[in-house]
């Protein structure tokens, strides 16, 4: 048992030394955020364009961009085939490498985000009218898969926590 115990302590020590500077615990989500539930369309369903994205919300006050930085009030961002910005970042994160945008006053604006497939809303529904065809040109039999993600923004437009509410859908191009 002695050999095993010493192996254990060395293993734990080594991994703690290696791993501890790399991680933190503050603000991390270990349980699902249940404040938002996407009710339409169903996950992994086949839809035709246009369609409506609908969701319900609880324990979250929809107040819009009022400059507050609490976690329980703000508004929504709908991302079509976009990975959200990291927690705590505002949507301008998406324009961080765009020099042209940084030189233009008022950029990034809603139009800029819309071009990226990102839409801001205070409603609990959103009409999806266009989605780019994701099928490879030479493989039209492949399903046209999309991810629609909803995130919460605080009154300052920053992402609240790590929560992201997502549905995966397939667009039926024959019906579109």
């Amino acid at each position, binding site marked *: 048992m002695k050999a*095993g115990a010493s192996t*254990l302590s060395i293993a734990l020590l080594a*991994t703690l030394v*290696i*791993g501890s500077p*790399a991680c933190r615990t503050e603000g991390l989500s*270990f349980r699902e955020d249940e404040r938002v539930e996407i009710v339409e369309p169903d996950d992994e369903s086949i839809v035709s364009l246009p369609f409506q994205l609908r969701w319900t919300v609880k324990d979250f006050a929809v107040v819009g961009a009022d400059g507050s930085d609490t976690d329980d009030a703000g508004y929504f961002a709908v991302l079509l085939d976009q990975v959200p910005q990291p*927690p705590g970042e505002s949507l301008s994160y998406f324009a961080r490498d765009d020099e042209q945008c940084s030189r233009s006053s008022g950029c990034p604006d809603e139009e800029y985000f819309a071009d990226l497939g990102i839409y801001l809303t205070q409603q609990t529904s959103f009409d999806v009218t266009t989605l780019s065809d994701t099928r490879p040109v030479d493989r039209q039999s492949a*399903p046209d898969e999309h991810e629609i993600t909803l995130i919460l923004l605080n009154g300052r437009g920053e992402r609240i926590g790590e929560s992201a509410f997502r549905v*995966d859908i397939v667009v039926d191009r024959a019906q579109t």
Partner: protein
Amino acid sequence: MARRAAKPRWKAEERAVAEVEGAADRLRNVARRALGVTGETEAQPLRKGIKRAGVGWYPLLALGALAIVDEFQTYGFFVLGPEISDGLGISRGTLAFANLMKILVLSLAALPIAALAQRKARRASIAIFAAFAWGVVTMFTGFVTSVLTLLVVLMLNGASTASVHAVHRPLLFDSYPPEIRVRLNSAYRMADGVGNIVAPLLVGLLTAILGFTWRGVFLVMAFVSLAIAAFSLRLRDPGFGRWDTGQVRRAVRKSRSNEPVLEDEVSLGFFEIVRRLMLIPTVRRILVANAVFGMFLIPLSTYMFFFFEEEWGMGPGARAILFATFPLYAIPALAFVGPRGDAMFRQDPPKLLRLAALLQLLAVLFVVAGALSPWFATMTIAFGLAVASFGLLNPILGVALLSVVPPRMRPHATALIGISISAVGGLSGIILLQGIDSRFGLTASILSLALPGIVATLVLRSSAPLINRDLDQLIDGIVEEEKVNDLTASGTKLPMLACRNIDFSYGQLQVLFDVSFAVDDGEMVALLGTNGAGKSTLLRVISGLGLPTRGSVRFRGTDITYVDAERRLKLGITQVPGGRAIFRSLSVVENLKLFAYTLGSNRNAIEKGMEETFDAFPALAERRDVAAGTLSGGEQQMLGLGKAFILRPQLLLIDELSLGLAPKIVSELLEMVRRINAQGTAVVLVEQSVNVALSLVDHAYFMEKGEIRFDGKANELLKRTDLLRSVFLHGAAKGLGKR
């Protein structure tokens, strides 16, 4: 200078060599039984084997449990990738790159981990350490907040998983006797299948029912992993070859029966072991078969996702469920084939490899059937049976492969298998087959993969006739080592150099056949023969520039067959290669200093050696600063001989000293060779010129077409006109007259 007096050539040593050879033949059957090849057609009851092992089920359960939790982190990433990506705000491409890095580390880290276990039997410690490491790494995965930290934990996870690949099977192999190994390896493989079922269930339970995020899932998985790692704490390394080579040693050791019978210390370094493994024909053939099979298997695993999605409209959930059903085919198949595999190995090991080839072929055919099936049910059954066939290959090939590998080298062998499939085969397959899917469609792509699959089957099938010979070689090596130890212990004097039953090939061309050759302390022997007889090749085998495909080279009783040339130089073996053994662009002094490379910073020895060289060859002293390439042929040979003065070897191998030189120069050089020999250095002189060689030596070997045709006194060779007639022209008798 007076010649050394002729003496009877070490009769005791010759007897010792003969005894070693006799012992190997005498003990072969006993040794084969010890390795599990009994000739019986029935498998021994599993319980009986477990009882004989004396360690119960624990090592199998502990290693199996570790294999299950090893699946957790991998599966967690596989399923929760999108959630991780969304949560951290990193792109799918970045996540895929991080995962690729993990796979790269996993493939490459297995060999260094094997190296950790090569000198000391610490495989259990490595397995336990890795289990805790991956538990803690899994825990840290739940706390990562950036791409960098994610990359670190994934790479650490890859390294810990690599340890599973490197040490688990060799540890299992040495924990239980040979008669139940296929079943135990099958059971271990079943644990993989159980992991493939449990991991999705656990993820589903934690996310869908208990509401955990990906972070929560990794934390729970970490606690489960750590608990199972704690369960494995009682694992102990049984020692190398406890149940196979250790038993052979026990059979050989009679006078020293009370001593431990585990494998003796091996002095081979990491790269020497890898080279050694590549010289075992069965291992080499299986590695090639695996590399080719990897061209089939690795792209297939990617194409299958798209195939299910595009041809059968299956979403991620449906695909996950389908994949989770595949172990349900594999587990009963493993239970069914395990005992039959054990019986086959007991009866005749080639049968096991033929079965592996058949299973490989079946796997390919089931994949083809699945790809072409018009019905969903038959498609899933066909792919399920293909997965079952893949699953069976692993334990069967594992047992066949590891049985012919010396126990210390088994972690290296398992690591090489992983590399051959993933890195060599997988990468080649992906590169070669790139674009086929876009041109011909997915079904055609899968069907095109059948070609490497069938080629791999043929290669694997061709390994079957090799395994018995490799088992015998393993036995011969052990018996020889034990007998040499016995003889040394009993005070028997062994030859300084003993080459036994050497085969050597350049690629597919075999040039040495069963060559045995010996040199004693202070002796000078001539190695004569026709052009292309294999004389220089034999010198290369002795000096380590070439490695034999069979047989052994022992220097003062120590096996140096696979030791690097550089290490042999340090042991005292130096070769003066044929064809002017110098660096032409360097000066004479620089050449001599280069010869002294292995002496390190021992300036005195270098200076002394250089002075002696210049004393012996004043012509060189006069031209010490000129480029060696401008020296005459004789002077260049003198410079080559300077090695002997610098390095003071115990054994000097001289190749074609007299070639193309004037008689006066040859005579001068021969005088130096005599002087070197008189100072105690044994000399092997390779010559085509009989008169030159026999003017120096008492004992001669004659080679023809890669075989030793004569081994005896020099003057007796002169009477063998049948050998000399076709080769050596006039002057042989004259040579004898000179003596």
